[in-house]
């Protein structure tokens, strides 16, 4: 192998660069993951429409499905995994508890670099927190 040491050094540097975000103490240097804040009402309710882990990872899918369900199929109620029925509405049902949009929705979306257009039409809650 010609110039073998150059290749090896390059490879090592490359591996280090690629792997550093996954090092155990990477969190120290990275921007801190924002934690969504819960309003008193949300804390009191304890549960969202589905378990927290599900909502965390799947809320965008659920909202998309809710949207199609109401607008396209005219189904305006949602029965969750425990059998409780909710009115399907971002603007009314979700916001009833999560009335702190900036601290609940926006800060994570900004962190993750996503820009959902929900609030172009749906009316934002009047925040009094």
């Amino acid at each position, binding site marked *: 192998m010609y110039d073998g040491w150059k290749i090896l050094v390059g490879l090592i540097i490359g591996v280090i660069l690629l792997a550093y975000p996954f090092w155990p103490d990477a969190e120290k240097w990275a921007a801190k993951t924002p934690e969504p804040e819960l309003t008193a009402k949300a804390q009191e309710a304890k549960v969202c429409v589905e378990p927290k882990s599900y909502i965390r990872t*799947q809320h965008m*899918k*659920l909202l998309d*499905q809710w*949207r199609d*369900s109401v*607008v*396209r199929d*005219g*189904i*305006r*109620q*949602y*029965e*969750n*995994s425990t059998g409780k*029925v909710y009115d399907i509405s971002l*603007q*009314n049902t979700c916001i009833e508890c999560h009335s702190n949009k900036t601290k609940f929705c926006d800060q994570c979306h900004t962190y993750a670099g996503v820009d959902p*257009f929900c609030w*172009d*039409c*749906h*009316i934002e809650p009047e925040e009094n927190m």
Partner: protein
Amino acid sequence: MGIKRRDFLKLAGLSTLIGLGGKTAFQLFAPGELEASIKEVPLTAGTKWGMVVDMTKMDEHLMDKCIEACHRTHNVPKIENPKHEIKWIWKEAYEHTFPGQHHDYVTEKYENRNFLLLCNHCTNPPCCRVCPTKATWKREQDGIVMMDQHRCIGCRFCMAACPYGVRSFNWGDPRTMDEALNPDFPTNREYPTRAVGVVEKCNFCAERLAKGQYPACVEAANEIRKGALTFGDLDAPDSEVRKLLHEHYTIIRKPELGTGPNIFYIV
């Protein structure tokens, strides 16, 4: 001998998939369990909603009240420029309401008065046929010509196709309209506004019907004068609208086009 070309490609494909996010990638392509979880709750009782407008009971004040009720319920802003104006329900002269029926000797009673106009929720709606994204469609369950603002791309084909001019385009963001004309906009915080670049129109108050309420205009009209606007199921022979249609001679807008309007006028 080294690795075969075929094996190399397989390996490369698999590592790409794992590289793309491992477990998440597999979850992404796996069919969702979500679809099954929505419980079907029946929407409304009617299968073909329609309305009878009794012009003998209508006057300017009453029509204004209907318009106000509708536009406040659905966050429709007031816009001064008639080219940009947005209207779900509005007033129009006889000549423009029933252009085919107009002649030189129409009785003054009708010649000089306004009629109340809204989406006809046609049986055979031309707007739905031309929509390239199915953002507007005829709802099979109850016959409402619906609008899905999430899908509308603002091409305005539907506006060209509608022979009744019931559709309006949002040339600007409805939230940034003249504050002097819209002091308390949005007027209904339970209903969304629209965004710039989408078409909108009357939805027969689908959101109110789902709650078992009458459309906002019907409610407002009947508060002032009973029977000015009557809403009901055209498929039910004993419904109030069918009784009215049975008892009175009624006309519809531009019947010659074959769109089958479901708004009937008693004159």
